[in-house]
């Protein structure tokens, strides 16, 4: 039995994919304490073959989390498994199968992309020089130009080419699209989509540009103030979070009041009724709401037919339900409501 397991393990290692059915990335209870910042109980998992977007405002702990995964920062607590392997105990093995691009990639400025490929390639048994050359060509990067002549966008693409050319099974990117023009951002995202055409390969990327995640990511993980707030299938998150609006439920006599004072009193009454409901159970489904003139607009994180019905009951009409963007969700999370 032990031999069979060992053989299976050897075969798996030979194919170079760690434990084949393990998640691409799994963090459990990861913590890190700094004097002025604490990463607390960070847990999430990225199944193989998918893209996860890691969203949070600046200073939320995105880069710290990524540096912990890469063992560039030592974690205080918790466990990190990359392709089923412990990221510290089996660091060399793990890094052979991971492509990493840091937030501000620093290259030797005086050398050429061709030289860099030769240099980086030596560290990877699976380095594919032809793939590197082809990727540079596709990205429009001249092999023989010095790195210092490249624009910021081109340097990011160079970093991506370097991170991809050993055919990693997991690509980890820290803010790959930040500060890039829309065309290059599009190219970078298209590249991520093309990576996961192979369903054993996965991508984990952090960003504060939520539109990028909205398009390509299968999973989203929101981090705020060192803690994971949401980690789920993106489509499910977007199905739960909705913008709900309705006109204030004025009593008929207020609606038809001929004097402004009568109307005002009616509005105040309706407003009070809605505000009271929002302090109750229904309010717990809302991350935020405002009443502008005669219109209620709220963002719910727990949309369901039940919530729609309850709101309809309060409003006396079926509420308007519209989708929200990941940006709206990020803002609601950062503003820190009690609910949700």
């Amino acid at each position: 039995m032990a031999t069979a397991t060992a053989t299976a393990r050897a075969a798996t290692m030979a194919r170079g994919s760690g434990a084949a059915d393990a998640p691409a990335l799994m963090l459990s209870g990861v913590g890190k304490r700094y004097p002025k910042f604490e990463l607390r109980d960070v847990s999430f998992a990225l199944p193989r073959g998918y893209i996860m977007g890691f969203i949070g405002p600046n200073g939320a702990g995105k880069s710290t989390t990524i540096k912990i995964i890469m063992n560039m920062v030592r974690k205080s607590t918790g466990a990190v498994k990359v392709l089923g392997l412990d990221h510290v105990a089996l660091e060399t093995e793990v890094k052979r199968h991971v492509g990493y691009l840091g937030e501000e990639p620093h290259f030797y400025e005086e050398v050429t992309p061709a030289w860099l490929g030769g240099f980086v390639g030596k560290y990877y048994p699976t380095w594919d020089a032809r793939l590197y050359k082809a990727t540079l060509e596709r990205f429009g990067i001249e092999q023989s130009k010095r790195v210092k002549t490249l624009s910021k966008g081109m340097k990011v693409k160079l970093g991506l080419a370097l991170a991809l050319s050993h055919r990693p099974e997991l690509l980890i990117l820290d803010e790959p699209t930040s500060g890039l023009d829309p065309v290059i951002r599009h190219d970078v995202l298209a590249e991520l989509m093309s990576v996961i055409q192979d369903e054993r390969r996965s991508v984990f990327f952090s960003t504060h540009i939520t539109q990028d995640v909205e398009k390509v990511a299968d999973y989203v993980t929101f981090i705020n103030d060192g803690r994971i707030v949401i980690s789920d299938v993106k489509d499910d998150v977007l199905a739960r979070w909705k913008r709900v609006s309705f006109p204030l439920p004025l009593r008929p006599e207020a609606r038809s009041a001929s004097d402004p004072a009568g109307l005002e009193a009616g509005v105040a009454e309706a407003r009070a009724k809605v505000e009271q409901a929002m302090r109750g159970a229904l309010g717990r489904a809302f991350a935020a709401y405002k009443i502008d003139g005669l219109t209620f607009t709220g963002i719910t994180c727990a949309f369901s037919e039940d919530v729609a019905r309850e709101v309809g009951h309060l409003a006396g009409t079926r509420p308007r339900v519209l989708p929200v963007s990941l940006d709206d969700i990020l803002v609601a999370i950062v503003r820190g409501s009690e609910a949700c």
Partner: protein
Amino acid sequence: MQVHVSYSNPVPLYRQIVDQIREKVLSGELAPGESLPSIRQLAEQAGTSVITTKRAYSELEAEGIIVTRAGLGSFVADLDAERLKAIRMRALRGRLSEIVADARASGVTDEEFLRLVREAMR
């Protein structure tokens, strides 16, 4: 096969994909037995996530519009005229119930609504 989704459209992305492929099948642009791109290819081409596209294909399978054969990929189902008609009717019924719900929510009575339908059919 081209599928275009809009992120500003309130209709969920997977539904947009379902609606477009269903329409292509109903219009004959996609013939019975024709092979469809893989889930991952379609995701890349349409610029949506793999999970979104996967959901769209499962929905189309549940509706009997496409079939997936293990290892071979997905194909347009062998639909005869009767089945096509049934699918068209179901799609129309779905759209109609949304319109009816809209009408009722905005205070249009069923009699008024029926009058509108009759007028539109003239």
